[in-house]
């Protein structure tokens, strides 16, 4: 592909040279973008469009595919399983997202100006890099009702019997959510720390001299300056928490009963256990729409509370 412009061509050729330059740029761009673009088309774009199409068909993966319109969606909305899955996912989100953000902000603020910050950060970040399966297996052991260390110590120190976290249908989602908070705390904290670094010390000092107390400084200086970071983390945490699956699959298999059966669990079960690809696609499209609606709502609502420095 050595069609680059030769430097010693006369000035009359400039127009054609520009053309040549443009075509060769396009060819080079295609070469460079090619592999990733192919991947994007084959492994993301086509599957995405197909998912929408499949959701309108009746298909078990083997026989013929028939177009049935919105029937899968109507069925899904009537399905108790979808309702259970949506509720469990929502409950998980409602605990894990606000809990995780608040806790990690507190830790980040505590760490912001303290000696030994790097060391603390190293430890707090450790769970983030550990995979969901390993983390789940270890927590399965910690949360065991017979010999799990958490219940055992609370019982022997305070005489309180904690619930059987993973076998009690009322507590299984909260337990997984708390584990989720623990798992992601370090990640949120690091992003908050980066955001806190952008809060100018001069502003904080000025507020102090003006006699503002710590709460006021936090509310009127730190929080507004941090709001883009909070916004970013809220959006991404929401998207992440709506996709919760690994922990419940490894720890409880969606149980007890269907107490930790989540949206992704639902999609997974319909497709790879029941082999109803059409229904599963409909559920996947519903998940996608829910995530999109929540994200759009957040983008819209940010105007009310997110402050950008300009």
């Amino acid at each position: 592909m050595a069609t680059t412009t030769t430097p010693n061509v006369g000035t009359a050729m400039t127009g054609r040279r520009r053309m040549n330059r443009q075509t060769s740029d396009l060819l080079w761009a295609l070469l460079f973008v090619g592999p990733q673009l192919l991947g994007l088309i084959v492994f993301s774009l086509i599957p995405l469009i197909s998912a929408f199409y499949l959701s309108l068909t009746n298909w078990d993966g083997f026989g013929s595919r028939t177009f049935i319109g919105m029937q899968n969606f109507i069925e899904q909305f009537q399905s108790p399983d979808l309702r259970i899955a949506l509720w469990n996912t929502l409950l998980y989100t409602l605990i894990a997202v606000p809990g995780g953000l608040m806790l990690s902000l507190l830790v980040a603020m505590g760490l912001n100006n303290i000696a030994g910050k790097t060391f603390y950060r190293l430890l707090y970040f450790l769970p983030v890099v550990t995979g969901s399966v390993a983390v789940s297996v270890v927590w399965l052991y910690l949360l065991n009702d017979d010999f799990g260390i958490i219940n055992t110590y609370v019982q022997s120190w305070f005489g309180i019997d904690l619930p059987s976290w993973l076998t009690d249908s009322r507590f299984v989602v909260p337990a997984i959510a708390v584990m989720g908070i623990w798992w992601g705390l370090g990640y949120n904290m690091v992003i908050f720390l980066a955001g806190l670094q952008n809060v100018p010390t001069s502003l904080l000092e000025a507020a102090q001299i003006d006699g503002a107390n710590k709460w006021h400084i936090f509310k009127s200086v730190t929080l507004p300056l941090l709001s883009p970071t909070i916004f970013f983390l809220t959006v991404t945490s929401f998207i992440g928490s709506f996709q919760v699956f690994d922990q419940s699959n490894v720890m409880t298999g969606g149980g007890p009963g269907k107490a930790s059966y989540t949206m992704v669990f639902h999609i997974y079960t319909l497709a790879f256990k029941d082999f109803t690809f059409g229904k599963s696609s409909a559920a996947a499209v519903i998940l996608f729409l829910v995530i999109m609606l929540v994200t759009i709502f957040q983008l819209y609502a940010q105007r009310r509370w997110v402050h950008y420095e300009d």
Partner: protein
Amino acid sequence: MASTTVPTRTRVRRGTGEKPGASRVQTIILHIILSIGAFMMVFPFVWMILTSLKDLSQAFIIPPKWIPDPVVWSNYPASLQALPFGRAYFNSFYISFIVVGMTLLTASMAAYAFAKIRFPGHEIVFLLFLATMMVPGQVTIIPLYLIMQQLGWVNTHLSIIVPGALFNAFAVFLLRQFIRGIPKELEEAAIVDGANRWRIYWSIILPLLVPAMSALGIFLFLGSWNQYFIPLIFLSDPNLFTVPLMLDQFKGQYTVDWTLLMAGSAIAVLPVLVVYLIGQRKIIEGITLTGLTGR
């Protein structure tokens, strides 16, 4: 945090958090709270290691026994023999290395084009990359499965390697940000010398990308090593299992033998810990950087 009474308007000295006088107590209290927090973050791993070195009878003692006595090292070889963890290790390592290497190559190529070549449609195509980052993987999993079936890649490692190597919008985005920061002048000299685009990419851009790529590479390695959902869908032959899948299966068979299970977990986590401890600065920098792109 119960920071209600602030005694004086003591000026905070820059850099260290040392405050004179009364607030020294506050600093100490803060250290205690943060240490308790740090302990809670690390405790599950500590308990995993401690349990993995106990014999079975010690694992269930109430109140819990902390220090294993005797130290049962044999849990490690035993758990390696109980299931083909060695094989899973090999699978995970070679898959991760190919995925990381290929992603770094293809993503940096695409990133270079997006950052430096003004080709028609570059904005739309780049937007497409960004948009796909917002699509949850689970939404496309069924059609992806069908595509893999068509290609005959179900239950082969290709189903994990090829999409990983050829499609990573996040990596493209991250590297594009870096390349945009490289001054034009560097390239222009090369163009005058008659270098083509590939030469510019290979001998000018790529060497400058090494720090960014090493951070991204660590990221990609951790992501690939820890991947669970995709391998769960595509792999059914235990010989092809990666470490997380093997650990999940191990869990299913050994939930009674917690000492073996904790040894297995420790084995699964070990490479992650090593990579984390070596690359933790870069990981944090990388995460901070990508986090801030959300602004």
